[in-house]
């Protein structure tokens, strides 16, 4: 059999791949169902994650509030999408809607600093170097990761811990190198294999952590 007739023999298995498909309505119906299913999966993961982490949120929130009251500040960081979630968390502390602003920054905010450090000393030190320059023992570090294995985050947590900072790690999968790590004071693990679903749960965890700090602030 020649190649064309070989293709035609198996075309029936994949009616859409050969480019002759013309009716989008079946695809749109599938996409709608898929969106509903994934959203439900995400909501269930967020619920179970909050339940599993409720006690740790209270503990970490209390320690953070204690440090903020003593003049401490928050530094957040991550890679890729996690860097944007870290930036969202810092902005929530620093510019909250109708709440008390607290000093907080993302360590990926400055492209000159990131590219200088990455180019000159290597990307693994991109966050650790900034903590060396800026951070004090009263401060708080939050590392956001889906794998828990990124070298730049682990080195930053080591630096933060050695300086007496309070260190918080957000991770996923089985927790990676954040688990049982002496440099991580509070470790939030989202038990999922999906990077997307992990990030969605971490965003909500971050919001709850902020809310816990605000609640503690009110009690002072």
């Amino acid at each position: 059999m020649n190649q064309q007739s070989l293709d035609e023999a198996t075309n029936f298995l994949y009616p859409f791949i050969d480019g002759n498909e013309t009716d989008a309505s079946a695809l749109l119906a599938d996409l709608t169902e898929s969106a509903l299913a994934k959203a439900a999966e995400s909501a269930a993961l967020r619920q179970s994650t909050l339940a599993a982490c409720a006690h740790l949120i209270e503990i970490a929130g209390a320690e953070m509030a204690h440090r903020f009251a003593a003049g401490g500040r928050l530094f957040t960081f991550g890679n890729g999408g996690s860097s944007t979630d870290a930036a969202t968390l810092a902005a929530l502390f620093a510019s909250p809607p109708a709440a008390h602003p607290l000093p907080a920054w993302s360590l990926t905010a400055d492209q000159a600093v990131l590219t200088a450090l990455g180019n000159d000393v290597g990307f693994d030190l991109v966050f650790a170097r900034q903590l060396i320059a800026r951070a004090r023992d009263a401060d708080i570090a939050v590392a956001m990761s889906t794998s828990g294995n990124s070298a730049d985050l682990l080195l930053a947590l080591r630096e933060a811990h050695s300086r007496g900072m309070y260190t918080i790690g957000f991770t996923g999968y089985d927790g990676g190198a954040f688990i049982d790590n002496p440099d991580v004071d509070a470790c939030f693990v989202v038990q999922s294999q999906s990077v997307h679903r992990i990030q969605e749960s971490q965003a909500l965890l971050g919001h709850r952590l902020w809310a816990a700090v605000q609640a503690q602030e009110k009690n002072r």
Partner: protein
Amino acid sequence: MTAAVPSVIAQDLAADLAIASFTLAQRFSAGATMWCVAPAFAPHAHHIAVEFVHPVIVGKRALPAVALTGPDLLGQVRVSARAGDVVIAVAAADERDVRAVMRRAAAWGVTTIWIGNGDRPQHGAADHVLWLDDQDPALPATGEFVLLYHLLWELTHVCFEHPGLLTPSRECTDDVCITCSDEGRLGEVITAAHADGSASVRTATGTETVVTALTGPLSPGDLVLVHAGMAISRLSED
């Protein structure tokens, strides 16, 4: 009092996501760049861009998505977006710069997607409105928006598995084709300082010179309705 975690997204929103992702796949297949804006939440613009340009799932296509942040959002989008491109915004319905961008999208030939929460934008403000009615001003920091644009990415990549559906049919099924002489098209004034009183106007099909006798003097950035070589009326921002 912290917000409860919503159980699921509504059926309507799921259908809106499906349609938006299908359109997005069509546009990307035709060579579009997606410009991502979020003036009040710059990290969302960055998150959307990095999702598409460097997917978390190995082997998926890298697509041209760019975050535009910082001052003069309208000017940045105006100079960046080409006909056929997509603009996606994460913003409240009253975000002034996003409203100005959405208002001009038809003049630029750009498809628009708007993600937000609270009061909805007016009907037709964007081609695809992906909205959560919850009024909580902290919702943008809870991961709900992240879920929506993650779903958009996931569904768009499912659409790429159906190449036959991504090139729109060019068949003309009408008895009479709509031509320039039959319709008014949105234009944005580029310059209006011509000695003969004409103006250069940007429309979805390119730059045109129009007679301004009906509208009177125009300024750069003004919105006009273009018909048969004339600016027949100025349009408001709303």
